């Protein structure tokens, strides 16, 4: 197979944007795009709410910056945030020029909506299918570039690294079961998040942290992994997301007594029905809302739906016409999956794992510690989100940093001549062939990935949920490590080569296990409460800048337990302040 | 290694939807017969004998049955056609598209007007 200049792993929003940028940087450049599913199946497709950028005349970069940094509880890299807010608008305009069907105002200008944690309306949206429209627009636009060679349904299993420099990837062609060593001067990881490490989540089945684990196994740090965002409004049972936009449009949350309980948790005073206000009540940030659910649950004020504790989202006052225009997908989802008509009924909801703030550590230019290896999108930690991501920042992140990664990688490829170690690649290939053969050798039913996966997601929920304790985390860490041991005996029931999805899910579980260890270890070591990471242990329930205004970095150790170090945070532009919402937020701002 | 089932000749018997489609397409058969009959009528105008023979033919019960069928078929065809029309030629007035039911109703009222006109012209009033 030929050698590529830029090889992108992942066909979601980040991967496609990177591939297009690389193609535009060098119209004759050789670019490969590998994805384990057809690009338009990537989980970006599920994003509903919107993408943020400073748009209105009464808004400013400084305001978007402040919201993002405070939202991330001062753990964001401020230089990165600064770059991001300044590039955001142009990237959304670029999407518009590629045909993205953004929702409009009557005069034809782009419409912006409110979003949790954002002080001003600055979220661009395409009805309630923003991610879907963005992904399809990007995919379709990528078809214009004949120098992007797609490898659809190629499952990347490993990176080819030679002496701290990338050489390419090792990929399993799903339709044949054949392994290919594909050479490339640069590789961009854009493999998405790891929500499936948890039992109850809003993510698709493919969101299993593959890219994070691959880079991690080659010595790149996973940074800030303890910060896992719960979305306050998932449907019970499936975890299917009910977008935050439903609250932005005026939906309210009530407990089993019909009481708007958020006012009891520092988000009040209650805003009048139909008059949502940014950063108050239902438009507080996600971590606060999810935590409030947990508190209500402890107080026995939650309702029940098919065995799940739930609170309720009330959209009835918005009226049928408005709901069908602004939130048609939500109406459809509620009808199909919980048999509820939001026009006349309350939607039962509960928090669900949604987003991994942490990921493959990169610098502000998306480069990792391996030369020629870049990472972007949800799999990466460029430092934008800190301890908690604000909704609608991540879709824009895919564009801003996807473009940057594509340009940087192509430029690097054109100015460097990495040494390609063919023998080493061939050796890695043989090792993997051996490994896959062993896994699929016999139909013997030993340990299966199904059992191990169930135990993994259960222990993650038990010990590493919305609120965490020392003992719970210790137990989960021990459990995850035990599961990693058991995985050594795992067997795949399906012995065939073509479309062996049994094998794929087994490999995904292995990625999940490594990522899970990093998440639990970082959660255990961060003995404070910040953003999405909340500890109940004594002395750890508040933010502690003295000791923990630092990023965690977890490093893989091949035969031993993972290790953790701390890294300074860039706070050069804004000194850490109090993170408050509702009336409290107003006061602290006035001060 | 792969397989691809061939579409069987009887594919259209498989479900109701396809049968309804085939029925719509089949409406053309009695209509063809009607048109041929009318053409023959026009041709028969050249001689009195031929015209009388044609009248006899038109009065045969089975011919009447087929022509009645043709009438029903044309109604059925109109029904399906009118239903499809708003989707092929959507009409927008400002922000809103004209609802399909309105367009279908308009088409039917047009049809009824034409029928009434014919009855008035040739039937000597309603």
């Amino acid at each position, binding site marked *: 197979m030929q050698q590529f200049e830029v090889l992108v792993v992942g066909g979601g929003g980040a991967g496609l944007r990177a591939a297009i940028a690389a193609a535009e940087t060098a119209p004759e450049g050789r670019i490969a795009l590998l994805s384990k599913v*057809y690009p338009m199946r990537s989980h970006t497709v599920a994003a509903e709410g919107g993408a943020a950028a400073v748009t209105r005349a009464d808004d400013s970069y400084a305001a978007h910056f402040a919201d993002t940094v405070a939202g991330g509880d001062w753990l964001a890299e401020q230089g990165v945030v600064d770059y991001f807010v300044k590039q955001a608008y142009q990237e959304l305009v670029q999407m518009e020029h590629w045909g993205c069907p953004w929702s409009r105002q009557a005069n034809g200008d*782009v419409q912006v909506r409110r979003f949790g944690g954002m002080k001003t309306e600055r979220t661009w949206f395409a009805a309630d299918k923003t991610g879907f429209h963005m992904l399809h627009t990007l995919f379709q636009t990528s078809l214009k570039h004949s120098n992007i060679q797609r490898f659809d349904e190629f499952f990347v299993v490993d990176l080819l690294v030679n002496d701290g420099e990338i050489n390419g990837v090792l990929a399993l062609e799903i339709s044949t079961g054949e392994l290919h060593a594909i050479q490339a001067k640069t590789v961009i990881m854009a493999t998405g998040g790891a929500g499936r490490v948890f039992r109850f989540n809003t993510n698709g089945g493919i969101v299993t942290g593959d890219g994070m684990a691959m880079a991690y196994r080659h010595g790149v740090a996973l940074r800030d992994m303890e910060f896992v965002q719960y979305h306050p409004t998932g449907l019970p049972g499936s975890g299917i997301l009910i977008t935050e936009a439903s609250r932005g449009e005026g939906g309210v949350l009530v407990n089993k007594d019909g009481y708007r309980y958020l006012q009891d948790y520092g988000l009040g005073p209650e805003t009048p029905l139909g008059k949502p206000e940014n950063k108050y009540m239902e438009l507080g940030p996600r971590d606060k809302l999810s935590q409030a659910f947990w508190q209500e649950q402890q107080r026995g004020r939650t309702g029940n739906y098919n065995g799940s504790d739930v609170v309720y989202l009330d959209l009835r006052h918005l009226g049928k016409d408005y709901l069908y225009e602004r939130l048609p997908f939500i109406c459809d*989802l509620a009808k199909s999956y919980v048999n509820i008509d939001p026009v006349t009924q309350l939607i039962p909801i509960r928090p669900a794992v949604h987003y991994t703030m942490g990921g493959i550590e990169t610098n502000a230019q998306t480069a990792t510690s391996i030369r020629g290896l870049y990472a972007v999108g949800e799999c990466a930690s460029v430092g934008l989100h800190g301890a908690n991501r604000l909704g609608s920042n991540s879709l824009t992140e895919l564009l801003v940093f996807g473009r940057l990664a594509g340009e940087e990688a192509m430029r690097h490829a054109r100015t460097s001549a990495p040494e390609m170690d063919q023998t080493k690649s061939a050796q890695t290939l043989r090792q993997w062939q051996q490994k896959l053969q062993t896994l699929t050798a016999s139909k013997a039913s030993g340990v299966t990935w199904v059992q191990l996966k169930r135990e993994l997601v259960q222990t993650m929920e038990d010990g590493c949920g919305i609120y965490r304790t020392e003992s719970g985390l210790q137990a989960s860490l021990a459990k995850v490590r035990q599961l990693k041991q058991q995985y050594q005996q795992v067997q795949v029931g399906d012995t065939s080569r073509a479309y062996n999805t049994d094998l794929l899910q087994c490999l995904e579980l292995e990625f999940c296990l490594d990522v899970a260890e990093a998440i639990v270890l970082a959660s255990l070591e961060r003995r404070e409460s910040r953003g999405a990471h909340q500890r109940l242990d004594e002395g750890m329930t508040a933010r502690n800048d003295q000791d923990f205004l630092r990023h965690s970095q977890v490093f893989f150790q091949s035969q031993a337990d993972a290790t953790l170090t701390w890294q300074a945070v860039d706070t050069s532009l804004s000194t850490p302040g109090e993170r408050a919402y509702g009336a409290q937020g107003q006061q602290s701002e006035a001060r | 290694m*792969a397989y691809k089932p061939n579409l069987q000749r009887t594919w259209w018997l498989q479900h109701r939807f396809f049968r309804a489609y085939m029925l719509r397409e089949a409406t053309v058969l009695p209509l063809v017969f009607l048109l041929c009959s009318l053409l023959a009528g026009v041709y028969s105008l050249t001689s009195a004998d031929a015209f009388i023979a044609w009248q006899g033919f038109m009065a045969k019960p089975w011919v009447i049955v087929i022509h009645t069928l043709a009438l029903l078929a044309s109604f059925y065809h109109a029904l399906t056609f009118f239903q499809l029309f708003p989707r*092929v030629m959507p009409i927008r007035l400002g922000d809103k598209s004209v609802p399909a039911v309105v367009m279908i109703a308009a088409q039917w009222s047009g049809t009824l007007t034409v029928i009434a006109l014919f009855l008035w012209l040739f039937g000597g009033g309603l």
Partner: protein
Amino acid sequence: MHKEIQIKRYLPEEHAEPFWQTFRVPYDETTSVLGALNYIKEELDSTVSFRWSCRMAICGSCGYMVNGIPKLGCKDFVRNYPAALRIEPLAHFTVERDLMVAMDEFLQHLEAVKPYLIAEPSEPHKPHRQTPAQLAKYKQFANCINCGLCYAACPQFGLNPEFVGPGAIALAHRYNLDSRDQGKAKRMPVLNTHDGVWSCTFVGFCSDVCPKGVDPAAAVNQGKVESAKSMLIQMFRGGA
């Protein structure tokens, strides 16, 4: 509650021919067809292969024939089938294993219609203006999730795999209707051919099975009007 579910299996590495296999699956009010398949894979037979991801009817992976009708597995529920439930791979595509079909056959058609905005933006740093009415003109056709159900519903595609097909034509039409687009002249040649819009006999089943209300049949037949216009124009130009 339990249900007998039959699956049309195809394991080319073991058997030359497809065969039917029956499973007994527990279900409740909320069990989707995809949920049942996942139960089978995890509990009964891990070799059963099928595509899925989002489980919320938006990624377009999980198209199967359920009792002979193309459906999204994650948006079709076991409760809808009081009698038997038979799952087969999507019709009219080449089957490569179990419920896995060669989706490339659809993607090729998609790529052929140039489904992207063709335009020179007049102002690189500003969005175009597009009124809600202009957006509404094409919006429905932009909702296609590329699931391929309409291809499995289209007998003309079954008879002639070269037919560009409902989904791809809907997408071409979506861009043709977009007030920002100037690429219609480039797309029409593909639609004007026999394998373009003119293969369609307006069976209309494609729109019935479409899970997203795209109404591809409408797109194809509006496309016929456009095609007739564009061919007339060409005739006059050619004659002059």
